[in-house]
């Protein structure tokens, strides 16, 4: 499942001449954090979106194949058409996938450097958890 998720996320943010794409390590780091912290509904939405994306090239590029078997050009077209498909519920499932991929993509150091933004430090945890008397 993890492999399907990362491939689906990367399809939305491929490397281009202008900007870096979503790196596999960044996708894994995002998914690791979701596994550890995110509510079930959030994770289920992402999984449903990734499965919908993987199984639906027939809807977008007319090929009865999983997206994993598409050529790079066809995969790119599939991602573009899936994101604005007229079937609303399908489009919203794809949106959950794209949103997660975007969160992972935009947080990468190399992307932020390309956009003249400083890298993001690691997120801190709360220091006011547990029983404390400030």
């Amino acid at each position, binding site marked *: 499942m993890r492999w399907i998720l990362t491939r689906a996320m990367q*399809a939305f943010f491929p490397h281009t001449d202008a900007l870096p794409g979503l790196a596999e390590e960044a996708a894994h780091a995002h998914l690791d954090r979701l596994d550890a912290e995110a509510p079930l509904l959030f994770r289920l939405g992402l999984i449903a979106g990734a499965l919908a994306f993987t199984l639906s090239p027939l809807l977008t590029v007319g090929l009865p194949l999983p997206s994993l078997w598409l050529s790079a050009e066809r995969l790119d077209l599939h991602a573009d058409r899936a994101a604005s498909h007229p079937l609303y519920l399908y489009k919203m499932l794809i949106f959950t996938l794209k949103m997660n991929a975007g969160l992972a993509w935009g947080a990468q150091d190399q992307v932020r450097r390309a*956009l003249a933004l400083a890298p993001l430090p690691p997120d801190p945890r709360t220091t006011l*958890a547990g029983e404390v008397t400030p």
Partner: protein
Amino acid sequence: MTHRSAGVRPTHLSADYVVVGSGAGGAIAAAELARAGARVALIEAGAWRQPQDLPHSILGTFGATLDQWGVSITRGRALWPIVQGRAVGGGTVVNSAIIVRTPADLFERWSSELGIDGLADAVWAAQDEIEAELEVGPTQPDQLGRHNALALAGAAAAGYPSHPTVRATPGCAGAGTCLQGCRRGHKRSADLVYVPQVLDAGGWVLSNAPVRRVLVQGGKAVGVAGRFIDPITGRPGGTFRVDADKAVILAASAAHTPTLLQRSGVRHPALGEGFRAHPGTTSFGIYPDPVDMVQGASQGWASTAFRTDPGYKLETLSMPPELVAGRLMGGGKALVDRLAAYRHMACFVVGIRAESVGTVRAGWGGAPVVRYTLDRADMERARHAIWTLARTHFAAGAEAVVPGVVGLPYSLGPDQVDRILQASLDPRHWVAILSHLFGGAVMGADPQRAVCDPRGRVRGVRGLLVVDAAVIPSNLGVNPQHTIMALSRTFTRRLLEEGA
């Protein structure tokens, strides 16, 4: 002074007043009671983060400060996210601290339609005090950044009034991270201003403590009960019960307060009815020179010129690339190529003063289920608003605008702006979010139509008060924090006067 969070042992406390929710409504009520010498327990479902503990990333913001990681959605024709804060300080931690006084026309409407009288002077007097406490002032020229400056210039050139926002952010460094929380501590949010007053007065603060139900005995609210959760994993911890000798005060938000009342066995025909919001959407302008919209105040510009006709408010919004990546249309190389223009983008947003009304009910597991669909008149307001924003972008020098509505081209040039007026009115063709939620336990003079009386008291249960946006019976058309705070202070003072 004691703060307790995420414990595994059962906790049983006793106080004069229990306040549920520590955002704009709850924190100020708790502070008011504590300053009056009462024993107060302030209970918050979310975690407590000091400014330096706030996340840097948007994903971290979702997890640390937003209710349900920001993925609660409306049930209706369109599935739109409902964005609410969930942290000690509530939404004041992650909003832009925009302060707008309650417009007079609202009090007139509430009086004529709902029999709510005698609020205006008290609310405005409270707002005078709150503005001093929060060190409110206009966004300064050196805090604007190019993003907000473009909006000011664009509105002036387009011929309508606008202004730098008035905010509770003394010493703002213009870091453009209001929505992630201000790590510099410059935002005068409720967790920094009012929650410490509760602790200083010897009260309790419980965080990571979602209240499951209000305890009612003999027709009187006598306390609350729930179970702690881990702030990171969300796993359940020990149970808690807090007894209230005098009153229970609810300020858990317009989504959670009505459902908490429902879970607690409160019955009223209007409970869960009258839900309203400011649905919001964006318009990006693409400019010839870099805008770098995350430099400067996150929301340093606003206009209320269209608040009453057709009914919307306009603002800027600094959006980091993580969010713009999900917002722009398309996928694959086409999307990444569009994102290459990120530095040249300015983001203007609209909040619709929607008249559409929805419901909020406790669903599976007791979580809020919001049913809400914008009607045609509200969609026309939305369409007019993004047309106005597009004109503003072009007046400010944009080369193109990105309207973001299905059926329109990805971008439009200056001579195509009127195409927006033909945009679809189907909500499914729009990307929007719901923030600024109102209603669900509205106040009013009619016992059949209003859950709460005009002093915020829940009908049918003694010692139970609502002091958040759930009591607000209409859409404000302005940022609600100031109104919520002032209503809460007014209701709390009246509660103290009557001795609960």
